[in-house]
């Protein structure tokens, strides 16, 4: 039987952690783009667009991420397409992230005083101009802390993709455990690595909140 040193364990976990980071980035950026599209459908536009966007958000917020992963993994397979685990993981996480970001950002846009809409309308601006030059610049400032805060959820959400066989940090943890029979050491390290990824994000969310002084800003 081969002996594994502590360094062997840590090295393998860190290598796998790269995929957690990549998956988090892809989900967050992709989710941000889809989320922005959902936001525009949700707050402006036509009735059917609002309903569609609202339905989407409720569906993805109202079902477990794990089920969404299963559906992406096995569901697309039903159409005869062989889905690799990484693809299913990316798709499911992007769609999930988008639903939450759209809802967070909607709150931010709606927190902008009604008078800002009225003043810009009375100056002759159209809807897109109001959004682009008046509402979004203010809403973005409000949105930064909760958005960064939510990124922590995305990082932790990637752990679930281990179940459909994507080898990221958690999956690597169970593989290494099976080889070394040292579950406490291994999962302890896994937890620490997640913490090392997430803590700076939470902390920066707090700092940004204070720095942008969102709560004390008056309109």
């Amino acid at each position: 039987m081969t002996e594994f040193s502590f360094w062997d364990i840590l090295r393998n976990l860190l290598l796998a952690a790269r995929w957690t980071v990549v998956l988090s980035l892809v989900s967050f950026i992709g989710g941000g783009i889809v989320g922005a599209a959902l936001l525009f459908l949700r707050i402006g536009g036509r009735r059917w667009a609002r309903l569609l966007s609202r339905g989407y958000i409720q569906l993805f917020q109202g079902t477990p991420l794990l089920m969404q992963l299963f559906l992406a993994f096995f569901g697309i397979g039903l159409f005869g397409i062989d889905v690799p685990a990484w693809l299913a993981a990316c798709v499911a996480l992007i769609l999930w992230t988008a639903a939450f970001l759209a809802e967070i950002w909607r709150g931010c846009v709606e927190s902008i005083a009604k008078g800002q809409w009225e003043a810009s309308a009375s100056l002759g601006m159209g809807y897109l101009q109001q959004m682009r030059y008046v509402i979004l610049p203010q809403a973005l400032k409000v949105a930064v802390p909760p958005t960064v805060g939510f990124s922590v959820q995305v990082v932790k959400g990637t752990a679930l993709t281990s179940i459909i066989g994507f080898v990221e940090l958690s999956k690597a943890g169970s593989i290494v455990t099976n080889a070394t029979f040292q579950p406490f050491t291994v999962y302890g390290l896994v937890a620490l690595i997640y913490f090392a990824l997430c803590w700076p994000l939470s902390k920066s969310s707090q700092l940004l909140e204070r720095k942008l002084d969102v709560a004390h800003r008056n309109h």
Partner: protein
Amino acid sequence: MSLIAITEVKKRFGDNEVLKGISVDIAPGEVVAIIGKSGSGKSTLLRCINGLETIDEGSIVVAGAQFLPDEVHLKALRLKVGMIFQQFNLFPHLTAGGNVMLSQMVVKKTPKKDAEAVARKMLDRVGLAHKFDALPDELSGGQQQRVAIARALAMQPIALLCDEITSALDPELVAEVLAVVKELAAEGMTLVMVTHEMRFARDVCSRVVFMHQGRVHEIGAPEDVFANPRTPELRQFLGVQ
């Protein structure tokens, strides 16, 4: 030929009819004060003229442009009438100058250099040329409201609507804003103002409209309306017996 023709305008919020058939004609250069208790519909009427509220019946025509609730007509209407709000509603992320420049560049596609020249001129007109680079947060309420006036003027409207523009100000700041409005009136700008400043209405306005429960109750020259109120409602509102 009237500049703003309001004919039989009715407006409902649900079951509550707030405007029950309003007809007022406003000639170019007139300064009209709309007075009345809160809930009498005076602010709603003003917001209808600018298209911030839709109307259910009747018509509003500003300088030949009919009010219709689609983006093209609304924009045409809003380029003709500027609006000043009780809460100033300056854009907090832009400087005073930026506030005055934004809509010129975005709506009228004025080049930045020209927009800046206009902004400096308009801020100077309201006595705030030196505050061009100040953010709204750094200005007093009275200064913010003057920037808002400059912002509306920069679009070169043919009429200005003022919705209780001094109500949110500390008493000592009211005078500086009213002085600007008075100057505009003297220059011949058409003004429609909802106001609680009775003395100002008496001194500056050419006509006073008293609204009560969604109707125009009395209308006339300020000396008539204030000196000889004909109806008990207006007498009660003015506190004379």
